[in-house]
């Protein structure tokens, strides 16, 4: 990571590695996607747009089953497995997340046909989420969550797809509704352009980001790997393994109250039924 790239990353919250995939690697990954494309079930229309007018469109085209692409029958799993610990990505994640960074969830395939719906802008400094936060300490950067997006097709200006608010990983104020929906984005939302074979890294969760509706006649094709620092966890396998009976074993939690079970969930950012409150008279209950 050059000084210029590090400066850009710290300033904006994203970076693009140009031309990382060879033509052969790009062709292999697209061949796997060709096989899968007809199996993709479109999501619901207007899903996750937060009532936006600007982000409306037809259903999302995604494959988000955890580690699904890594388990495809060979040779189709091979290009995605090579992405897991690609040298250019490892070098950057060692600086961004710290050594010992870990794959948290994904890889997700995100496709798009002309008119595919967008996704509201999300992630910001308020509410603050420490497990994906961006921080500097003793001259070293630490980012809890970084997503690596391998682009299998071109994304030109105005095509849509990944969009973000550069610099928002350092914001400490709630995001205005107009920015969230992109109906009045204040001119702060940017849609980076990338070519097929480029790789985009962004501070997932710390940086405000989302998706613009797809407008190009060509397909959108991107594969997203979600990483975390050594001690952080977001979702993925952690979600499946977090319930108290699984994480600690039934012998430890059998007979516990719902409130006691709440503090026994394994590490996972999205566990439900894990939040407690205390009344003025000292009664502890689930939120």
């Amino acid at each position: 990571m050059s000084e210029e790239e590090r400066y850009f990353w710290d300033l904006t919250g994203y970076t693009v590695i140009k031309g990382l995939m060879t033509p052969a690697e790009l062709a292999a990954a697209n061949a796997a996607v060709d096989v899968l494309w007809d199996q993709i079930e479109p999501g619901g229309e207007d899903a996750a747009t937060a009532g936006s007018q600007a982000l409306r469109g037809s259903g999302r085209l995604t494959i988000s089953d955890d580690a699904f692409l890594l388990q495809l029958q060979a040779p189709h799993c091979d290009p995605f497995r090579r992405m897991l610990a690609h040298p250019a990505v490892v070098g950057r994640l060692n600086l961004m997340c710290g050594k010992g960074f870990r794959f948290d969830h994904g890889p997700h395939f995100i496709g798009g046909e002309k008119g595919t719906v967008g996704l509201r802008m999300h992630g910001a400094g308020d509410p603050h989420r420490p497990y994906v936060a961006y921080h500097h300490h003793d001259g070293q950067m630490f980012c809890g969550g970084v997503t690596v997006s391998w682009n299998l097709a071109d994304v030109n200006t105005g095509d849509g797809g990944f969009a973000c608010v550069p610099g928002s990983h350092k914001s400490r104020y709630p995001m205005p509704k107009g920015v969230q929906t992109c109906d009045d984005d204040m001119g702060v939302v940017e849609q980076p352009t990338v070519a097929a074979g480029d790789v985009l890294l962004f501070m997932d969760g710390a940086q405000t980001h989302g998706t613009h509706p797809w407008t190009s006649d060509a397909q959108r094709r991107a594969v997203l790997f979600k990483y975390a620092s050594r001690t952080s966890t977001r979702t993925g396998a952690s979600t499946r393994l977090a319930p108290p009976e699984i994480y600690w074993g039934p012998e430890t939690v059998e007979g516990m109250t719902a409130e006691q079970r709440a503090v026994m969930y394994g590490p996972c950012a999205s566990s439900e039924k894990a939040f407690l409150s205390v009344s003025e008279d000292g009664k502890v209950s689930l939120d």
Partner: protein
Amino acid sequence: MIADSPYSMSAEELYFFDLRGYLVLPSVLTTAQRGACHEAFAHEGGGTADAGDGEVSGMLGWPAPYRDPFRELLVQPAVVSRLNEVCGSGFRLDESPTWIRRKGGTQGQPLHGAGQRGFDSGSWYHQQNGRIFCRAVTVVWPLTDAGPGDGGFAIIPGSHKSCEPQPAAVDFAFRLALQPLMKAGDALLFAETATHGWLPPASGKKEFQCLRYRFTSRGNARSVGRFFAPEERYGDWSDELTAAERAVLYGPGVDDVPRLESDGNRTWISATP
């Protein structure tokens, strides 16, 4: 420290915890609750509570009713309210609670924590938007008094915010090191990233005993829990991956997992953890 309400964290407590990195809640545990702990330990802990030296865990899984007093401490309301403030709602128990026993004249635990390994993402303390975010908070329940010479917890107040390496000469004799005085039944919360350690009881003093519960914020892992290795998390197909690919599939938590190095063209496992 006297709170405005036993079940909410006062502005004075927030100020003190942020400034010092620890907080003592007086008289939280009743004599009956402590008695229940001792009785359970005598029945299930491998002997009477008055003999032995070391650490015992697994109390949450003991047969009823002996597990009950330890389970009650998981969600003790005075502690829950403070953990919600400093660790964040959704905080979680990171590892099995431990019963610690130290005889007079035995070894303590040297000061350790902030400044020893650089930034520690597993115990990071910071503030943002007017709130404390402390990823690792340990709750200590003294079961015996911790007065001068009694042994117990010691800390360098304020060290949870230190940004400088800890000099090797910093030990319990360091003029900033402090032993918070506590009574049996108090509860102590401290930021794990603060420089801290355990003083042994002086020779001739009675055994020091306490319970230690280690908590962490929701999306964080301090120690290595279950389902850490790639095959435990993803299944047998992970065995087909290269060593470097497998290295990124470990679960969250601090351990000597294979660390990757890269020169931009190739990736290899680091020789030093």
